[in-house]
C-alpha cells in the first residue's frame, strides 16, 4: 500500500534509555557551566555570546533527541523550525522598531 510505504519515511530508531541518560548528563553539565561562567568576571565581555551558544546547544539537544525531531519526518521540522524562525523574526523586528538595535 503506497500510503503505508510512505508512512514515517524518515522514521529512524529512537535512542536507547542509556543514550537518553547520557544526553541528560550533558545537558546538566552545560547548565552548570552556564551558571558558573556568569560569576567569572573576566568572561563578562564575551558572556552574552557564550550564554547564547550554550543555550542554543541545550535547546537543540532537547528538540533533536528528546523530541525526536532528528529521527522523525522532515515535515515536523519544517512546522517547528518555521514557527521558531517566525518568532525570531518578530523579536528582531520589534526590537528594531523600538530602536533597541539602532537607537
Amino acid at each position, binding site marked *: 500500500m503506497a500510503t503505508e510505504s510512505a508512512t514515517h519515511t524518515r522514521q529512524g530508531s529512537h535512542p536507547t534509555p542509556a543514550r*537518553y541518560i547520557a544526553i*541528560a548528563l550533558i545537558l*546538566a553539565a552545560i*547548565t552548570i557551566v552556564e*551558571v558558573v561562567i556568569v560569576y567569572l568576571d573576566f568572561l563578562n565581555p564575551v558572556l552574552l555570546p557564550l550564554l547564547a551558544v550554550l543555550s542554543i546547544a*541545550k535547546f537543540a539537544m532537547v528538540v533533536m533527541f528528546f523530541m525526536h525531531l532528528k529521527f522523525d519526518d522532515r515535515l515536523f521540522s519544517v512546522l517547528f523550525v518555521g514557527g*521558531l524562525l*517566525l518568532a525570531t523574526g518578530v523579536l528582531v523586528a*520589534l526590537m528594531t522598531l523600538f530602536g533597541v538595535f539602532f537607537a
Partner: protein
Amino acid sequence: MSQLSHAAEHPPTTTGLDHRKMVMWAFLGSDCLFFGSLIATYLLYKGKSLVGPYPADVFNIPYTSVSAFVLLMSSLTMVLALAAIQRGDQRGLRIWLAATALLGAIFIGGQYFEFITFYHNGLGLTTNLFGTTFYVLTGFHGAHVTFGIIILLSFLVMSFRGRVAPEQHLNIELAGLYWHFVDVVWIVIFTVIYLVEAPNIV
C-alpha cells in the same frame, strides 16, 4: 519500530503522517510565536522601569538554577516514560510519568515561592514595566507547565485503569512533545531573563 506498525496506528493520510502528531508540531510552532512575543516584550522594556525593584534587586540565580535543573531533568523522566510504554512496560510508564509530574510540581512550587518572595520585596504585577513583563512571561510559562502536569496525571490515572496500551504510545509521545517544549522555552527564559542579569547582582 517497523513502518507497518506505525501505519496501523492511524488511517491513511495524504502525507502518510499521523494528523495528531502533525497538529501537535503545528501547535508547538505557533506557541514559539506566543512565547517569542512575550520574550520580545520583556526585552523591549528591559531597563525602562522608572521605579524599583529592578531585576538585580530580586533575582536569586542559584535558586532559579536549581528550578531550571529540575525542569531539565523532568524531560529525561518524560522520555523514559515514552521508552517504557514503547516496550510495553506499564510499571515503568507509571513510575516515570509520576516522576515527571512530581518534578513539574516541584518547579511550579518553586515558581510560586519565587513570586511570593518577589511580591514581598515590593514587586507586584503593576509596580513597574519589569514586574508586568516578568510576571506575564513566567506566569504563562507556569500555566503551560501546570497544564502539562494535569495531562501527565491524567495519563497516570488512565494507566492504572489499564487504558494506555503499548500500541497507543503516540498519545504519550504527544504529551511528551508538549512537555519537552515547555522545557526548551524555560531554557531560553532562564538564559535571557535570569543569567544575563547575574553580573549586575552584587
